[in-house]
């Protein structure tokens, strides 16, 4: 029982404000409720609706795309930049400080800035393309079925790369110089050094960064909501946005809860998968062995 003393504030808080509402969502997913009056028992009809809802299906795909693309885009850039600013030169310190700027801005501000910059008529990007005669920069950035999802992913990357860059920067700084010296003596240089020393040494950094990145990507909401609200059509409608629409614009709280549960389960699967892959659960299994 002594175990519970140290754990209790954490579990109490977490249990009360996260687990209890989550169970509430599970229960609500079996009811029909417009947010007013008494919820009506609906059996599995909300769930049946989910499996026949093309919009929900598409938003699952969009969510998966956002997660995958975010990781693919953010990881290499963050790592490269992190390694660069890990250098001790003074100008790199300046770079490092400026790199952090996007991280500090609030999402609402970021959305407005990009909306203004990407406006096809008055936007800064359009102005640039006109003065530099770069025709390809004149696009309907936020209103094109083929392009907009990628623009959104890019803006999310712009916002979050600074944080991951920071992680990689300090990760690199912790690698002892002797390892590089030894590898150099073995005749390694350039890319071989990176592959044989840097990358393996950054393994834990990679895991930490990827976990935060992927779990974060699953729940991106604010910026997509403000920038495109899922449009054009449904091309950038992620699951969390779909849930928001169901709950607060269509007032179908029962169906929204189905989406919420799906979101929770998807997140859980990802988290468990990551934990397994990265050895985070070694703590758990170690404990099992001990008891």
């Amino acid at each position, binding site marked *: 029982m002594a175990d519970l003393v140290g754990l209790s*504030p954490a579990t109490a808080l977490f249990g009360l404000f996260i687990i209890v509402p989550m169970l509430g969502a599970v229960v609500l997913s079996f009811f029909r409720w417009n947010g007013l009056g008494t919820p009506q028992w609906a059996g599995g009809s909300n769930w049946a609706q989910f499996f026949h809802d093309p919009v929900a299906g598409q938003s699952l795909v969009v969510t998966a795309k956002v997660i995958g693309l975010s990781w693919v885009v953010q990881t290499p850039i963050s790592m490269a930049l992190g390694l660069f600013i890990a250098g001790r030169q003074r100008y790199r310190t300046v770079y490092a400080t400026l790199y952090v700027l996007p991280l500090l801005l609030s999402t609402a501000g970021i959305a407005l800035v990009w909306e203004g910059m990407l406006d096809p*008529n008055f936007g800064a990007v359009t102005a640039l393309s006109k003065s530099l005669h770069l025709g390809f920069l004149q696009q309907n950035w936020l209103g094109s079925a083929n392009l907009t999802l990628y623009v959104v992913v890019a803006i999310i990357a712009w916002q979050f790369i600074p944080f991951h860059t920071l992680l990689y920067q300090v990760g690199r700084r912790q690698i002892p110089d002797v390892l590089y010296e030894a590898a150099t003596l073995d005749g390694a240089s350039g890319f071989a050094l990176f592959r044989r020393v840097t990358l393996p040494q950054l393994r834990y950094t990679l895991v930490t960064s990827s976990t935060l990145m992927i779990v974060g990507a699953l729940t991106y909401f604010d910026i997509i909501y403000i920038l495109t609200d899922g*449009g054009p059509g449904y091309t950038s409608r992620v699951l969390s946005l779909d849930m928001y629409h169901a709950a607060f614009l269509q007032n179908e709280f029962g169906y929204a809860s189905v989406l919420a549960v799906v979101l929770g389960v998807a997140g859980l699967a990802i988290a468990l998968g990551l934990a397994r892959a990265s050895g985070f659960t070694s703590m758990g299994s170690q404990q099992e062995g001990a008891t």
Partner: protein
Amino acid sequence: MLAATLIALIMALAACGSAAGGGKNGTTSSGGSGTKGGTTVTAWLVTTGPSPANDAVNAAAKKFEASHPGDHITIDYVENQSFKQKIQLAMGAGNPPTLFWTWGGGILQQYIKAGDVQSLGNPSWASGFLPSSLGAVTFNNQLYGVPVEGTQPVYFFYNKQVFQQAGLSFPTTWSGLLSAVHTLKGKGIAPISLANGDQWPGLMFLEYLTDRIGGPSVFKAIESGKADAWSNPAMIQALTDIQQLVRAGAFQKGYDSLKFSGGGSDALVYSGRAAMQLMGDWDISSILGSSKSFVTAGKLGLAPFPAVGGGKGDPADLAGNTASYLAVASKATAAQKKAAIAFLQSVMPSATYAKAEVAAGEVPVTKGASPLFSGQQLASFDQTIYSSVGKAPSFQYSWDQSLGPDEAQAMLTNLAQVFELTQSPQKFATIMNKQQKG
């Protein structure tokens, strides 16, 4: 231990933070925090920014408090999108403010059905308002809301200079509009500025076209839930006309992602890059805020939506928001309701309040407001709007407010696809018919 102490500390701090405000919620504060036996009425209004319209309401509340010692009115202003969630959650939890902002129509009706709204009966003081302005808040011959801010019909707002230079006057017929589009396009000007990233600006075209082609009864049938009402030939024709406009290149580049809120669609018009915009009358003050000289130099034109040849609708018909309203929550205490209704009754139909509204740039829906406009900066616009509302045979409330929320959402999303040419008029009608049954 350490954790517990810290938590206690923070909670205490946080409690200070919130206690400072007072302004607590309706049902819990029947005694009213610190009001010594008086009644605190809470009110949620949608803000139009830190705007003069808020000042009019605030001043009215202050005045009411002065004449009703002990009563307090606490007003919170909430941004438009956020308001919709907050009010829905608050209603569902039985925790609404005493007075809440509403646009009337389908959403208000939903609250009424759930027993959340206090009926105001058939008060005699309601006769102080223009009759067309109360339709959106009248259900079963009972009044459920009182106009708090002015009327917002939709018109074409255009750049007079651009039209002049193109040798055009503003068209009064649909075919005239099409040929104007052609002419303007030829001069390298975007004929119509459209902020369809918000989806509701596109709906304004559909509302007017349907009315001009088939008359007000087309939408009335939809509203009353008549089967297959969306497939009415007038509706299909209206949707087809919209796509014809899109194909003719009537809208500026990026019309499907531009949002009205950033001011981009206004800027197109006053900078002369686009010729006109179909928008609610708030566009006047919006443009005034961005480019004062454009308005004061008389370059901004206002015109009704053109007539469609052979159509059944009266070209004097209007669409838009007849007004915005305050309704009384039935869950409030008897004392709160009494004070709230007294506030609505004594303030809203009064000439003083109408005057304050006019001063704030609104066009009130109070009867006999005509003389109030003289001397106002935008007097001629206000006068035009006020008299067109008075004369309109039909003033159709915005469809997205008239319909229930889920049907409205489906309509907006699917209509946006019609504007993007990714959905045919027939498909739109089929989807909406199904939505209606479901």
